[in-house]
């Protein structure tokens, strides 16, 4: 029961925050609404028993990404461009398209009966145990490529279940590459001559 109340509370905060981001014209307020919304998402993660993920969400998103965005706001919000307003027509058009999209999504999802879908499960892979909190250790092992939570056996042989060693490693390469790129772009440029394009490199 408590969980229900908490869910409705945070769900309202998530949706409200997201709507706030859309509706607000002021970029600083948008950042505030975004923090609210994403923070509440992390609360929902906790409710779903994904404690590590919830923490990561708070740390990386609220603590990292959004702060990055706020930096961006501060660096770019100067002078007359502080408020760049969306015209009413654009807003209306966006609302229409968004409404249609929402209709499509909800009409598909709401008809689903997930429990019925998965009781018919007869695939070789066993239903994994559903994470109910305390996911730090299984997640860590999964990143190393080990899945004790999801043993797959064929006869007497033990086969490795999908482990995530490769993406875990390769994503670090990705981060490296991306940060190099971001640093390059954000570095002070040498040809500070935006009005005069020269094609010769």
């Amino acid at each position, binding site marked *: 029961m408590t969980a229900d109340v908490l869910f409705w509370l945070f769900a309202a905060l998530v949706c409200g925050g997201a709507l706030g981001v859309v509706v607000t014209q002021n970029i600083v307020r948008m950042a505030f609404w975004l923090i609210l919304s994403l923070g509440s998402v992390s609360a929902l993660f906790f409710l779903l028993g994904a404690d590590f993920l919830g923490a990561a969400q708070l740390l990386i998103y609220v603590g990292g990404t959004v702060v990055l965005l706020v930096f961006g706001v501060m660096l770019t919000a100067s002078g007359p461009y502080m408020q760049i307003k969306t015209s009413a027509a654009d807003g209306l058009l966006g609302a229409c398209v968004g409404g*249609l999209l929402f209709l499509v999504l909800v009409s598909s999802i709401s008809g689903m009966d997930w429990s019925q879908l998965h009781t018919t499960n007869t695939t070789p892979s066993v239903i994994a145990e559903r994470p109910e909190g305390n996911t730090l250790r299984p997640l860590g092992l999964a990143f190393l490529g080990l899945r004790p939570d999801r043993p797959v056996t064929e006869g007497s042989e033990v086969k490795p279940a999908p482990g995530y060693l490769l993406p875990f490693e390769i994503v670090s390469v990705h981060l490296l590459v991306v940060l190099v790129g971001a640093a390059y772009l954000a570095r002070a440029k040498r040809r500070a001559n935006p009005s005069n394009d020269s094609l010769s490199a």
Partner: protein
Amino acid sequence: MDTGTVLRNLLTLAWLLPLAGFVAEIYALQLRWSHRLSKAPAQLAVACIGAGFLCSLSALLYWGNETKWVGFAPVEHHTPAEGLDGGDTAPADALRPDATGGEPASEHHHQTPKFYAGTFYKLAQFGPLEITLDWYIDSLTLVMFTMVTFIATCIHLFAMGYMKDELTEEYEDHQVHLPGGHHFTRPGRFHRFFAFLSLFCFSMLGLVLAGNIFQVFIFWELVGVCSYLLIGFYVERHSASTAANKAFIMNRVGDFGFLIGLMILITSLGTFRFFDVTTADGAEQTGLFSLVRGDDGKLDISDDPSVTKSVVYLRDSHGHRLVDGTTPRTISYLLLIAAGLGVFAGSIGKSAQFPLQTWLPDAMEGPTPVSALVHSATMVAAGVYLAGRFYPMFPPEVLLGIAYIGCITLFVAATIAVVATDIKKVLAYSTISQLGYMMLGIGVGGWAAGLFHLVTHAFFKSLMFLASGSVIAGCHHEQDMRKMGGLRHKMPITAYTMLIGVIAIAGLAIPGVGNALFGQALAFSGYHSKDAIVASALAFSELNRNPLHNILFIVPLVTAGITAFYMFRLWFMTFAGQPQDEHVYEHAHENPAIMTAPLVILSLLAAGCAIGGEDGWLYCLLSFSETVPTVDRFTSERVASIVIPSHLDARDVHGTAGGLALLAAFAGTTVAYLLYCRKVVNPDDIRRQAGGVYDFLVDKWRFDTLYDVAFVRPCHIVASWCQGFDQKVLDVVLHASAAITIVVSKWERTFDEGMVDGLVNLIGNSTTNFGRSLRVVQTGRLRQYVMWIAVGVVVLFAALFTALPK
């Protein structure tokens, strides 16, 4: 070396020389062996193609020598009964040479293989399908090679004179007006012109030498590219670049059909080759012709009478049905028709047949040598050549289609030519009309007749184009016939060589005179070949009881008259009569020998190449390599009852058809003479130039008195006898008929230009406009792009959702 190898080597040399020439010429300036004012590139081009001609000619002679000249003399024709007897038992596979090509294996009446074939190089292999460079040499190939290289040599020589304006650093193009009253000036492009000509010769020869349909397609496209380059030679002129584009578009439309035909062939027959080969491991791969026609040239159709269900059994070169396990290999009859129509669509585009004929008159924007080479004698002939080469693959329904397309084309084009006043346009329409004759000939089963006309037409049409080029050059680029007249005095060689061409195309003959010598009427080449076509058409329409098919005979017959009419009209307006424009006349002059010499040579051939008619060497040579022997009649009952006549049927009606055609030609000539030389029924002209006509006649024409006595005087006497009444009747009748013809032609021209051209232009413009309007979607606004993602998801989902079966 055996005969096949020698022939292959000679023809390959003739084929590749122009390519070498092209490479040298296009970079003549870059490679610094020539400069812009030098004629060296042209000399190189002439040398290449001239050497090619010598190679081809020696190949032809070698072949004749090796085969004891059997192909050059008439063969005793079978009676149908004999043909039937021979049907199954004759060792007809002896008609085919050893599969690797070259080795004669014939046991037939003569010890000569019908053709030599082989593979240059294997490009690729997709499972059972090989893509190869093949060669295929029969007498048709040899004749085409010799004809193309010969005409090309003449035209190269002529062009050296015609294009000499380009030998300059600053060529001023008088037809391009820049703002400020100046003309556009650019460096001359003499070397480039000859480079393009060489490339064209290479492509055309490759097309003729090709041993599989895919290779034909490749060179087909190359020929199209060359044509594009040459038509658009004066690229700065808007009309020239438009015409180049138009030619390319029209051709591509046809090529699309060609491509579909190719795909059907590859998917259902699995080979592109014309001939059979034995692979290294001894397996026999049957070529297209044997697959469809077996060894006896007949389609092996299932008995099922419905066209949608009947199939053609595929056979090997021994006439056995091919099997795939136990089921016989077949191709649906309908699919065969579709493939045939597809390939013929390519011919329609290239040979400017109805309804794709409009590009050819516009293509006259190119320099006149180009018109002569590309758009009269050779490139447009490629379509006819393909139809002839591919003849064994055409079931009777397709042939009927070919015949009707040819029939429509020849009539439409001829009527338009009647009202044209641009000298090159008249010739262009005449080309279309003659190509229609060829197609008609092939369609009604006169395979050899159609190709016969192809060769003779090539000679006299290139002659006439060169003569018109000579006129144009002599009159300082004046092309309007109404401003000419009397030019035969200024340029006699041009005029009389042209006259030979005109007589040849008109099909005039003096019956009875030559019979003793040749067994045929004394006539120039065009008479013989047109005669053969008309005879085939008559046989076709007689054998087919469907009254509609009579059109196929009547229309060409009438058009023979119209042809004579407009050709003589052209000649009379240009060379005879009184100068219409003193300025033009004053400045007109005969051209130097380098331009007139080719005219003379060509006129000899135009006059004499077909001596002997259907018993002459040229016709015999062509019919020697007929892949589908039309010894017996062939009857198809699938779609409609169609009977393809045999040689004998055509021979039976030859006298009738020839007589009628001759009559029509004389009628046309007479009318032209009356209208444009005598101008008896043109009251306006008579009123305007009343006295002048008589002076002109008395002074200038040698035979004037004769004509005067024979036609004019009686006319006048009768007129005075009838005291104006009869004259008025005659006047009204003739005038009305002339007016009706002109109105009809104009209407057709309007249709042609308004509808067909308009449609093409509409498509072109609307494509560009549509493309431009698509730019509006690309607003450059990021937010709209993102909006499209959402819209795209919703629309895609909605569309798929509604399409999903419930």
